[in-house]
């Protein structure tokens, strides 16, 4: 069974902007897929559909299937249990006063007991390297720590699919390296929208290139990103790391 199946997904914002124009693709369980494309190509809009946050009215139900189940207003709870979404701006996601409270938010919504919630918070903070940060205020964390806390908050819901929107933007090189290592250790199916092409090469075997709400290319990351013509035509570039991997 596919972890994710999207068939002819279209979406138009209220101001008339056509964000997605008939997107179709499938992701197998355990796959790690990079979603690349220039700003405004529809990456973030697509990610919001995977969690059932868009469309507002689920009239186009059936376009997105999570583990065979079509996303509809009736099964949103199930969908959100299965798909964990890490947002681009950590300040949007960390809405509780302390790190522990924020990580506990998901488990509490899932109806876990106090003891189970505390254990899960501890486990997830350890997973992202934030043990001992339980009582820290979310607004006084560094950007890298905020990113980790966001990931812990999503991991606490134990999702089978992890969807990340620009996970390494605004991180310093060490933060980026550590965050990538952390992602690599996670066994869940991963869909990562990013401008960090090195991340795509290092973590994702498969890449989908999106532009103007359409899929331009879908294939092996190394092959697609080596295609300089394709990259330049869609606001991207051949990553430096490929020059080292396949020097001409």
């Amino acid at each position, binding site marked *: 069974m596919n972890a994710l199946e999207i068939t002819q997904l279209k979406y138009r914002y209220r101001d008339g902007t056509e964000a997605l124009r008939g997107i179709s693709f499938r992701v197998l369980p355990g796959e790690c897929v990079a979603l690349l494309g220039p700003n405004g190509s529809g990456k973030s809009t697509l990610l*919001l559909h995977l*969690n059932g*946050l868009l469309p507002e009215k689920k009239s186009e139900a059936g376009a997105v299937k999570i583990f065979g189940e079509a996303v509809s207003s009736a099964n949103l*709870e199930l969908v*959100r*249990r299965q798909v*964990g*979404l890490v*947002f681009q*701006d950590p*300040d*949007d*996601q*960390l*809405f*509780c*006063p*302390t790190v522990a409270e924020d990580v506990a*938010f*998901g488990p509490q*919504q*899932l109806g876990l007991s106090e003891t189970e919630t505390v254990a899960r918070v501890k486990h997830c903070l350890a997973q992202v390297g934030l043990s001992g940060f339980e009582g820290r*205020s*979310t*607004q006084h964390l560094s950007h890298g720590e905020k990113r980790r806390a966001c990931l812990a*908050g*999503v991991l606490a*819901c134990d999702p089978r699919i992890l969807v990340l929107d620009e996970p390494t933007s605004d991180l310093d090189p060490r933060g980026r390296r550590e965050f990538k290592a952390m992602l690599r250790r996670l066994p869940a199916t991963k869909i990562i929208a990013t401008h960090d092409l090195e991340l795509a090469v290092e973590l994702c075997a498969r890449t989908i290139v999106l532009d103007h709400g359409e899929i331009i290319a879908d294939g092996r990351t190394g092959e697609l990103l080596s295609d300089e013509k394709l990259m330049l035509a869609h606001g991207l570039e051949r990553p430096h790391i490929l020059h080292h991997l396949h020097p001409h």
Partner: protein
Amino acid sequence: MGAHHFHAHDHRPGWLHRGPAGLKLGVAVGLILFVVLLPRTRTGGLLAVTILLLGVVVAGRISGRFLVRRLLVLEPFVLGVTVLALLQPGGLLVFGALLWKTNLCLFTTVLLSVTTPFTDLLRVLSKLPVPWIFVTTLTLMHRYLFVLADESERMRRARASRTLVRGRRFEWKLLSTVLGQLFVRASERAERIYRAMCARGWK
């Protein structure tokens, strides 16, 4: 005004800071109710509360100057309301009593806020039978006040860096633009926060 403005706590924690937040909140609410319900002619009661509060400040080794500075920020609002009492016959006495009572209530609130972290107060409120929507609203307000303050500070700096010609009228016009922009950004952020909450199962 940056986010640090809101963090203005008295950084010399004493016994008052260490006291249980629930007890402090209870005493503060009790005192405020007592002052509000006390007839304005009973100046003895008001004097007793004043002495009690000053005693707490001295015994708790809290910086008086710091408390007064915070109280002064609120004073224009107090005067804006109490000055209306001057319009009635014998208004001066009413004005005086009203000013005294309002300042006592505000002083109690300021004292509570500088000796008790807001997150502790929220925790107490969430355990009491206070409507959850009220506690959630306060929690989110406390969390995002800092983010918005930082955002307005960044916008102010960006504006200042490109303001070459200065003039009061021009400044006011710019301020209104920035405020409008901040409002739009705040509502967009609210939408994104709501989505982030829904993504983690908010019902």
